[in-house]
């Protein structure tokens, strides 16, 4: 059953009561909230996601709620509860939905050490995956959004999960988080894309989330073998340039951007080494999305 198979009223009552359990990749997440921005955004962005009738088990139990009764009217706040525990300081109520998304990332990053976790976007075409580790501001999410709007399958825009034993990327498809100028860039690039309302003045600027294609959600159980590691860099006015990089440097990109490289110890080191051995590594500078996609498509067609 998908979330959209529930009536909106049933969905809203469940979110306010026992919680709604959604499946994203290997994780089932129980979400509770009565905050309107969360109710509406989850409904819009997660409509295609598998949703369980049975609440008996969830990997993560999340509640997005206002922590303090006394501040319900005066500068109202919101907090993320992982079970009964609030790992973050409260934020302004306006940030409720972005907080849910950050919170879900936090759950995975802290409790999924079965995988090597890299702060990177990962997309697939023709059975092969490209991993894009990059610091914020490098245009990673924008490029990722554009790729998935042009036929690439989204595995994740933030959290690359690698099953080290099988050397495959495990999908956790979730809405693509767009920041600041990227929001309009993607709206122009593909007017048909569904982009949720913007949340302004969050501590990461303005944020809006793009809905993921149904196909990416439906194929969330299909892993993909990484074939490329690409470090994207948006540079105003530049032409698109794909430059091959040496493996040692690329190893460090992955290790530095990993959430749990050190937690995995020796297994992490050997796993990343193997991963890099299986990939071609590039640095990619771009300013035009159409150009960028042509180059990525060409990569995907090589045998």
């Amino acid at each position: 059953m998908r979330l959209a198979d529930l009536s909106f009223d049933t969905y809203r009552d469940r979110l306010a009561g026992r919680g709604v359990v959604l499946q994203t990749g290997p994780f089932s997440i129980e979400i509770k909230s009565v905050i309107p921005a969360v109710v509406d955004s989850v409904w819009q962005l997660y409509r295609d996601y598998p949703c369980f009738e049975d609440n008996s088990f969830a990997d993560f139990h999340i509640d997005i709620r206002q922590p303090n009764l006394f501040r319900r009217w005066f500068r109202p706040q919101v907090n993320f509860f992982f079970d009964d525990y609030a790992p973050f300081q409260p934020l302004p109520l306006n940030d409720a939905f972005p907080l849910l998304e950050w919170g879900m990332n936090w759950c995975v990053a802290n409790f999924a050490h079965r995988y090597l976790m890299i702060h990177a976007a990962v997309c697939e075409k023709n059975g092969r995956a490209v991993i894009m580790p990059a610091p914020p501001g490098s245009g990673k999410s924008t490029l990722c959004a554009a790729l998935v709007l042009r036929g690439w399958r989204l595995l994740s825009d933030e959290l690359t999960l690698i099953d080290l034993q099988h050397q495959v990327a495990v999908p956790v498809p979730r809405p693509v988080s767009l920041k600041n100028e990227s929001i309009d860039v993607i709206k122009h690039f593909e007017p048909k894309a569904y982009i949720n309302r913007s949340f302004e003045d969050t501590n990461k600027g303005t944020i809006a989330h793009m809905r993921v294609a149904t196909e990416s959600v439906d194929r969330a159980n299909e892993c993909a073998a990484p074939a490329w590691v690409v470090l994207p860099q948006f540079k105003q006015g530049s032409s698109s340039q794909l430059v091959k990089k040496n493996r040692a440097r690329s190893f460090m990109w992955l290790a530095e951007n990993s959430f749990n490289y050190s937690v995995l110890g020796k297994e992490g080191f050997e796993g990343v080494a193997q991963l890099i051995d299986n990939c071609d590594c590039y640095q990619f500078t771009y300013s035009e999305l159409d150009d960028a996609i042509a180059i990525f498509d060409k990569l995907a067609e090589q045998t």
Partner: protein
Amino acid sequence: MNDIDNCTLLVSVLRNPEKVSSLSLSQWDLLLRHARESRMLSRLAYEVYQYSDLENIPEKVQMHLDSAITFAKRQRQVVKWEVRRITEALHELDMPMVILKGGAYVMADLPAALGRVFTDIDILVPKENIEAVEQGLFAAGWVTTHLDKYDQRYYRQWMHELPPMLHHQRKSILDVHHNILPETSKAVPDARLLLNDIKPLDGAGKRYVLSPADMIIHSATHLFYDGEFDHGLRDLLDMHDLITAFKTEEKFWQQLLTRASQLNLGRPLFYALKHVKRLYHTDVPDNVLQSLKQGAANSVVLSLMNRIFSLALRPPHSSCRTISSAMARQFLYVRAHYLRMPLHLLLPHLVRKALRSDDK
């Protein structure tokens, strides 16, 4: 395990990990949450994997258990590595450095170290060396926290430890103690007694742990004189493991009793033995409990306190919270403050904290 109520699920499984085959999926869900909130998920994972067949553990549960074991293994490594750094930082000081609690269990390779997770490392040093220790640590990258003047004075004048020290690069936290209870506490023991009985970890003659009896008494004092019951079940399991490991030593129980009376900490030891026996079925002889009970408070107070501890010693999870358990915790929190300081110091301190709570 259909006959088990929610709040005893975790301890029941820890006592009989082979019985998980009868757990329903919703019991597994609750068990993982209780274990995680009690900081015992890694330990639970080790126990369940050791005593139960893989096919009895649902695949989605295994994901969490595997993750917790990976994390605990890394923590064990990190603790050993941090202790080496601390040893190096204090190398030039001519004094024993005693590693306390979880760090000690890991360094001494005790069963209580299995799946133990940490938020900080605790050491005990002689009080006369405390300034030199702070300087040595500072030179090696640890900086003091709680920069507020009042907080500094609170720690330095009244407490049994320096303000927590944070390593500026690794962000690891180190608590440097010179006693196991605050100076202002009525029950504060003579720290020299503890230091006189420490056991070396290695031949180098620098790193030590407390003697077996003191280790148990310290853990008991820490839990039953402190208001923090969130990790109460974990601390009690530590004590269960310590007792199980040490009880085979000759005259163990006699030494434990003698020591508790020397340190004047028979009362927290009594509570600890009582509850470790109740929850983990630890093999504590009745005559030991009887003998401690005689030295403790009157029986009305004791039975009331035991009732309150029983309410507080539950997984810190909303599924186990009742009005009475919340009141029990609140009471123990207030009691802990009262045990830390006499009222003429405590009241101004609490007023000050209350006035400040907004601008954190």
